[in-house]
């Protein structure tokens, strides 16, 4: 690791002050991704600002019957929180589908949003990567791209966002609360992460002097009809090839509300509101699910090794919507896909 300074933030205002005063500084909480990036020489912070002593570790009720999750709540505590398990089991399931229990014990809620792509070229400092070094080009487009994106790619970057938790948060339409030098703001989840475009070095719209303080969950949790289905190269502890979070509201056989998002296929959790609208008012049938999948994947494009993801995504969409409609969510310990 490079030599860096270290300081502790006493409160949120102090954290913002410290990071604004040092452009090379970074916040550290769980450290599960950042320490790894420093070891790989991908991140070279001048200083780490330890935010783990800030009072952002609570899950609290909101007046609108939603929940407010402090940015420092560890992923494992969030997954097993009784209110999350009961009211937002989709979120619990998605968290438990990611990483290992050791990493979930360390990783924070806010940090999960800010983890960086696991694109091998991003990690390999001997190869060009515009996300790592703006303007240097993309090695993945004509390289080994089996894990890469099929939707929303640009000529500059085909990396995917690695989070499982974020795929569920997209479906739940969470809001991200941030504090910066200019005060507090609340960002809709769909607007938090960015598409690669011509600036793939920017993963999110969080400004350099801002800190995530909380995630807010609206009341609607889809606790009856949901699933998180993750397909990967091994049964556990691997990043998604394709994953999907789904939440439905049904009246008999008719779909009243439908939301779904894909992981492992784009630079951010991938929602297609036209496909969701197509399902509203429709019957919960395999044919209708397949039509929604067609809508999502019409613009999909493979880059060689990852061509298979287009057909895989089609099947995952149909399967996950079927699981959600039946009320038989994917188990994260018994790996059989029903």
């Amino acid at each position, binding site marked *: 690791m490079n030599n860096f*300074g*270290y300081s502790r933030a006493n409160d949120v205002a102090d954290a913002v002050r410290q990071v604004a005063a040092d452009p090379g500084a970074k916040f550290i909480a769980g450290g599960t991704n950042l*320490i790894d990036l420093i070891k790989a020489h991908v991140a070279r912070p001048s200083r780490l600002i330890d935010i783990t002593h800030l009072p952002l570790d609570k899950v609290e009720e909101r007046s609108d019957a939603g929940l407010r999750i402090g940015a420092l709540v560890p992923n494992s505590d969030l997954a097993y929180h009784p209110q999350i398990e009961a009211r937002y089991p989709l979120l619990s399931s998605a968290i438990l589908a990611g990483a290992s*229990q050791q990493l979930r014990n360390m990783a924070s809620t806010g940090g999960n949003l800010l983890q960086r792509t696991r694109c091998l070229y991003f990690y390999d400092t001997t190869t060009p990567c515009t996300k790592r070094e703006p303007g240097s080009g993309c090695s993945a487009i004509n390289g080994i791209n089996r894990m890469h994106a099929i939707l929303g790619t640009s000529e500059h970057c085909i990396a995917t966002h690695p989070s499982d938790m974020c795929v569920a948060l997209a479906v739940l339409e969470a809001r991200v609360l941030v504090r910066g030098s200019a005060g507090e703001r609340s960002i809709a989840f769909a607007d938090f992460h960015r598409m690669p475009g011509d600036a793939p070095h920017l993963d999110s719209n969080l400004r350099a002097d801002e800190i995530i303080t909380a995630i807010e969950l609206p009341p609607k949790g889809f606790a009856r009809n949901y699933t998180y289905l993750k397909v990967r190269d091994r049964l556990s502890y691997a990043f998604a090839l394709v994953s999907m979070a789904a939440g439905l509201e049904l009246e008999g056989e008719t779909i009243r509300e439908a939301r779904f998002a894909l992981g492992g296929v784009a630079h951010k959790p991938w929602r297609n509101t036209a496909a969701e609208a197509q399902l509203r008012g429709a019957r919960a049938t395999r044919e209708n699910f397949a039509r929604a999948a067609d809508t999502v994947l019409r613009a999909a494009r493979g880059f060689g090794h990852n061509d298979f993801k287009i057909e895989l995504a089609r099947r995952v969409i149909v399967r996950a919507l079927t699981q959600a409609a039946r009320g038989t969510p994917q188990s*994260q310990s*018994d790996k059989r896909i029903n």
Partner: protein
Amino acid sequence: MTITLHVNGVERRLSLAPWTTLLDALRLHLDLTGTKKGCDHGQCGACTVLVDGRRINSCLTLVVMKDGAQITTVEGLAQGNALHPLQQAFIDHDAFQCGYCTPGQICSAVGLIAEGKARTADEIRELMSGNICRCGAYTNILAAIEEVILGKSGASERAA
């Protein structure tokens, strides 16, 4: 920076650079070499220790961030000459070949039991997936942990 750790019940004061990991502090500065460095990237679990009772990857933990914490390593599990039940079960079930992943496996399993979320073989497998064994001793590792958690006698009774 100067910090204090409580390692296996003993207070230790350390002066370390901020970029020192907990793993390197244990092995290089406290001479507790039971905890192993495998991948050093949080992918193998060989470095698993308990911090304030929770299992974590010590290779991805900066020791300066754990000032005042209670650390338990594999060296701290036995009571005198009496092995921890998991240590005994690993011996009884021949749950290792080269042994390099074993301290991490055992510390991880101690954390697993404390969490109380594993009630079936599938759940043990899933929640132990952060510990890789390159010898492939998983069958016997599972049997050892099952015996301690579920009170089963192990591999012979276990469904595949």
